């Protein structure tokens, strides 16, 4: 095995369809118009020396190394900035060019440390390579003159160093920060000889605006910006392409290894989701896999008040199986169930739901999509016929108007956020519908054309008001609607939204948004060209989450913004495999492929393949499981890779439910918060240690590749097989590819998917079958999956979670860039440097009226519970609304959230909780009690000698 090598063509590819023919070093070359001569030369394998050029960035033409000669033209132009032209004859290697290049390199090296043997980039340095390429043999200038060689290092960033003495001022890092990431945190300070890369205003990296995405490190041709792991470990010697286990963007990386040690994760340019970019989590935050907290041995205990006892896998599995059997004998077949993990692979998720349906004999299976995007599944399946987003990420490159509602892509989906910002810098218009001034509202070189800062909980009123403007102002794309949608349903809907009570003026009483802004935004979306809607949990996590999704789907149909590139309805999925876990039959009413358990034909298909009779009744959803547990009808649970105690709302109720279980089996990397209530702990396996696939937010199925042996002994799918077999249900798989073959055999949208296909294509987007053998990047082209698109009425119903004298503020929760979900992974990495604790963001006015200063400890109370955390005064909050994250168990933000949920799916209303804030001296009683309980519950008995 060797390193996966990707060719650097020096400049980006041209998208022109017109071809140009030229001659380079005697060879005829045909390339698209607009291609640089440097790239054209590389197309025929002729690598022109370069330092400031790389194909992730636009040409810059500063290093003067890539010079060429063109017959009939004067001078020696830079090949990176010179486009091809019909019939030109180019020479890339002449005596004159050789001399110039050698002279340029001599100047570079005259101000560069000659510590190649001990340099962290030794063997991985383009400057070193170019010195060899141009035949540099001596430096005539000496090293005694003025130079930068003694400049120090900035080691403030936890993951990479900035070694100023090695900077050649090629600007690649500065341009990467601008063009790829879109943060503009880097600049060149000083002038002439004094020029040097500078984060912000000559700040350290950590305290600057740098978001640590790693684009600058990747772009740097020397050791100037280099991973600290390269210092510590050395250069890698082999690599495999794998998929990130963080958010739903699904970035692919070259995992570069030395032996079985991971040296670094380098974004994969051929990755169709990330196109060579990354964020601080995927690029750097993988250290949790080797964190000391990781549990590597199975454990059992008969009571949660006892310490854990380490046992063999055989003993742990046998104990879990005997408990599940005992419970089913005593309380009935439907008294047990389980939760699949959106962090695990498709194959593992598939097996867990198969275990529950096949071995438990019921449909009590659910997944974390319940608490995030279940309304997306419901809303889009009702209106369009498919429980997934309509586009690929590349589609944004053709959008003219981008409407972002209830999403914060630069934090939650940062790599896609960067791609979106790039399109916005190119001129696309932006509408942001969000209570907060999220970064996209105003960030370097991006400013929203409309920001509609609505009150939390009023999405349906807002979306219906936009529809009102579209219908009453004659902005409907009638041809599209007549061709592709049910006309009668459209008319009923149009009549409904046209009612005056849905006008922007009428709904201002709910949303608090200036009607003129709503009208302007509606006109822009309807008539601004390709209109694309991107949304997140700010849409779904409401009591009317499904209604808003339906409303969004209505808008796209009414304006004809569906069924081609640049448009669509795009849910930004939260976890890495939340789309996949839904596809794999993790919902209690659906078998894999979104087919209801009551459909006889579907059930028979699975029964024949699985050799077992299946229940035809829907099972319990996660919140229903807690209710049933409290009521005494649900007694046993198998939870793989989720921390429901921390992530689910109304912690008090969740803990009551978990505490009532007689057998809770938790399979995880760590003793998470849910494991405090567990009786069996099965060690989990990280994504670095197993084979499988993840499916991202654009329905893209991508390989996860095993880089090292599981530190806990088994991949998660192998442990599930052991448990199934101990329950008397045989599962016979030697490799996850065989599980995927079974999925493909049983799921119409996956029939063309196999590991061989993924190996060949890199990735595919479902549906991938006989009708679409190469997958489906954009859905609903020429018609909807369900037939005619279905318009549905969206009556606004205010949530019953209301503010009042006792709880006058609204709390909304979310995530930030450096942390992920419950923080189980990211809290165990250096990412804590950016977010060591959850804080409460509060508007200055709300803080002042309560006597709260920035950094004060405050008590946060709701009708559900109370907690304490530090306040941060922030003008990005509107008055009356406060915000926090749920990344840290010490805070337990979900002690505050309530049991209100979406009418259709029970997705919790995380985004609206009435609260009050008051000064505090320290932790709440809940926090203190929980801390003590948690410490006691995590005890592990010493093994007997």
């Amino acid at each position, binding site marked *: 095995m060797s390193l996966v090598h990707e060719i650097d063509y020096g400049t980006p590819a041209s998208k022109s369809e017109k071809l140009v023919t030229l001659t380079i070093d005697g060879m005829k070359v045909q390339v698209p118009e607009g291609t640089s001569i440097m790239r054209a030369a590389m197309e025929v394998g002729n690598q022109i020396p370069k330092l400031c050029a790389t194909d992730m960035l636009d040409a810059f033409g500063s290093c003067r190394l890539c010079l060429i000669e063109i017959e009939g033209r004067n001078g020696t132009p830079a090949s990176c900035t010179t486009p091809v032209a019909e019939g030109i004859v180019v020479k890339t290697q002449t005596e004159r060019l050789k001399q110039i290049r050698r002279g340029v390199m001599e100047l570079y090296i005259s101000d560069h440390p000659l510590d190649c043997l001990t340099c962290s980039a030794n063997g991985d340095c383009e400057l070193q390579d170019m010195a060899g390429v141009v035949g540099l043999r001596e430096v005539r200038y000496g090293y005694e003159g003025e130079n930068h060689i003694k400049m120090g290092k900035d080691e403030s960033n936890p993951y990479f160093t900035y070694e100023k003495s090695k900077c050649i001022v090629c600007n690649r890092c500065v341009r990467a920060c601008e063009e790829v990431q879109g943060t503009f945190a880097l600049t060149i300070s000083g002038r002439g000889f004094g020029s040097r890369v500078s984060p912000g205003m000559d700040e350290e990296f950590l305290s600057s605006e740098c978001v640590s995405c790693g684009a600058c490190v990747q772009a740097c041709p020397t050791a100037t910006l280099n991973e600290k792991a390269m210092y510590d470990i050395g250069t890698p010697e082999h690599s495999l392409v794998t998929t990130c286990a963080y958010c739903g963007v699904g970035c692919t990386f070259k995992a570069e290894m030395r032996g079985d040690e991971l040296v670094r994760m380098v974004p994969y340019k051929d990755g169709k989701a990330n196109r060579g970019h990354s964020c601080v989590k995927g690029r750097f935050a993988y250290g949790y896999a080797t964190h000391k907290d990781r549990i590597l041995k199975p454990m059992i205990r008969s009571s949660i008040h006892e310490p854990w006892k380490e046992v063999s896998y055989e003993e742990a599995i046998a104990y879990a199986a005997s408990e599940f059997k005992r419970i089913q004998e005593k309380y009935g077949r439907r008294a047990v169930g389980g939760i699949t993990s959106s962090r695990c692979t498709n194959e593992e998720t598939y097996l867990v739901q198969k275990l529950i349906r096949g071995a438990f004999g019921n449909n009590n299976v659910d997944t974390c999509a319940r608490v995030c995007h279940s309304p997306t599944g419901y809303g889009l399946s009702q209106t369009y016929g498919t429980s997934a987003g309509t586009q690929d990420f590349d589609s944004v490159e053709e959008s003219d108007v981008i409407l972002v509602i209830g999403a914060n892509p630069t934090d939650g989906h940062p790599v896609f956020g960067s791609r979106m910002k790039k399109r916005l810098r190119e001129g696309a218009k932006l509408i942001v519908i969000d209570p907060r001034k999220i970064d996209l509202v105003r960030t370097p070189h991006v400013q929203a054309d409309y920001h509609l800062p609505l009150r939390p909980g009023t999405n349906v009123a807002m979306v219906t008001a936009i529809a009102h403007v579209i219908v009453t102002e004659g902005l409907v794309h009638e041809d599209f609607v007549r061709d592709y949608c049910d006309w009668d349903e459209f008319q009923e809907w149009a009549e409904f939204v046209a009612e005056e009570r849905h006008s922007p003026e009428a709904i201002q009483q709910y949303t608090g948004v200036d009607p003129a802004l709503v009208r302007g935004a509606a006109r822009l979306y309807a008539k601004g060209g390709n209109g694309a809607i991107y949304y997140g949990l700010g849409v779904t996590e409401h009591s009317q989450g499904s209604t808003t999704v339906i409303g969004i789907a209505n808008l796209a149909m009414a304006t004809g913004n569906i069924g081609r590139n640049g448009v669509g309805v795009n849910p930004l999925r939260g976890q890495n495999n939340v789309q996949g876990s839904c596809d794999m039959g993790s919902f209690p009413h659906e078998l894999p492929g979104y087919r209801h358990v009551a459909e006889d034909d579907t059930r028979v298909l699975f029964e024949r393949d699985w050799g077992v009779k299946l229940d035809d009744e829907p099972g319990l959803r996660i919140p229903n499981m807690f209710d049933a547990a409290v009521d005494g009808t649900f007694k046993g649970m198998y939870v793989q890779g989720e921390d429901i105690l921390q992530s689910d709302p109304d912690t008090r109720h969740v803990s009551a439910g978990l505490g009532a279980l007689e057998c809770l089996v938790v399979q995880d990397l760590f003793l998470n918060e849910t494991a405090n209530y567990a009786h069996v702990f099965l060690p989990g396996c990280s994504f670095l240690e197993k084979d499988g696939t993840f499916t991202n937010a654009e329905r893209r199925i991508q390989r996860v590749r095993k880089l090292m042996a599981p530190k806990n002994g088994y991949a998660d799918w192998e442990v599930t097989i052991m448990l199934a077999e101990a329950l008397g249900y045989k599962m016979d798989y030697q490799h996850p590819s065989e599980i995927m073959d079974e999925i493909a055999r049983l799921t119409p949208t996956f029939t063309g998917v196999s590991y061989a296909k993924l190996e060949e294509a890199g990735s595919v987007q479902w549906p991938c079958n006989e009708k679409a053998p190469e997958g489906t990047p954009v859905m609903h082209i020429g018609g909807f999956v369900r037939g005619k698109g279905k318009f549905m009425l969206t009556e606004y119903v205010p949530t019953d979670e209301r503010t009042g004298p006792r709880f006058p503020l609204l709390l909304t929760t979310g995530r930030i860039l450096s942390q992920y979900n419950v923080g189980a992974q990211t809290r165990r990495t250096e990412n804590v440097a950016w977010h060591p604790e959850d804080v409460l963001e509060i508007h200055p006015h709300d803080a002042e009226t309560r006597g709260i200063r920035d950094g004060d400890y405050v008590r946060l109370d709701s*009708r559900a519970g109370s907690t304490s955390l530090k306040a941060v005064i922030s003008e990005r909050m509107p008055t009356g609304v406060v915000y926090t994250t749920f990344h840290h168990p010490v805070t337990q933000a979900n002690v505050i959230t309530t049991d209100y949920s979406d009418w259709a799916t029970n997705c919790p209303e995380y985004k609206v909780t009435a609260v009050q804030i008051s000064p505090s001296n320290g932790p709440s009683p809940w926090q203190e009690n929980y801390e003590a309980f948690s410490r006691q519950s995590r005890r592990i008995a010493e093994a007997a000698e």
Partner: protein
Amino acid sequence: MSHSQTHGEAHDAAHGDDAHSHTSTDDRLVYMANQIATFFGSQKHDAAVAGTRDHIAKFWDPRMRARIAELLVSGGEGLKPIAREALEGLARKQ
């Protein structure tokens, strides 16, 4: 005494009469049925009843349906008319 009970008591002591919205599963089932009925309630009456009935049949576990059927038999306190009609239809169907 379990950990959760300890916290529940602490919570109640702290919050007194400002108790949380749903105190039991029964409350929650009625609330959920009404939410569903409210969504479909914007449609014509027969469609609203059918939509509510089908939604509950499709998404609710048998024990949830059985329990709300019992609540209906015992008067169905708190159920909105469409929810009540839908549940009556569901009971006849099963």
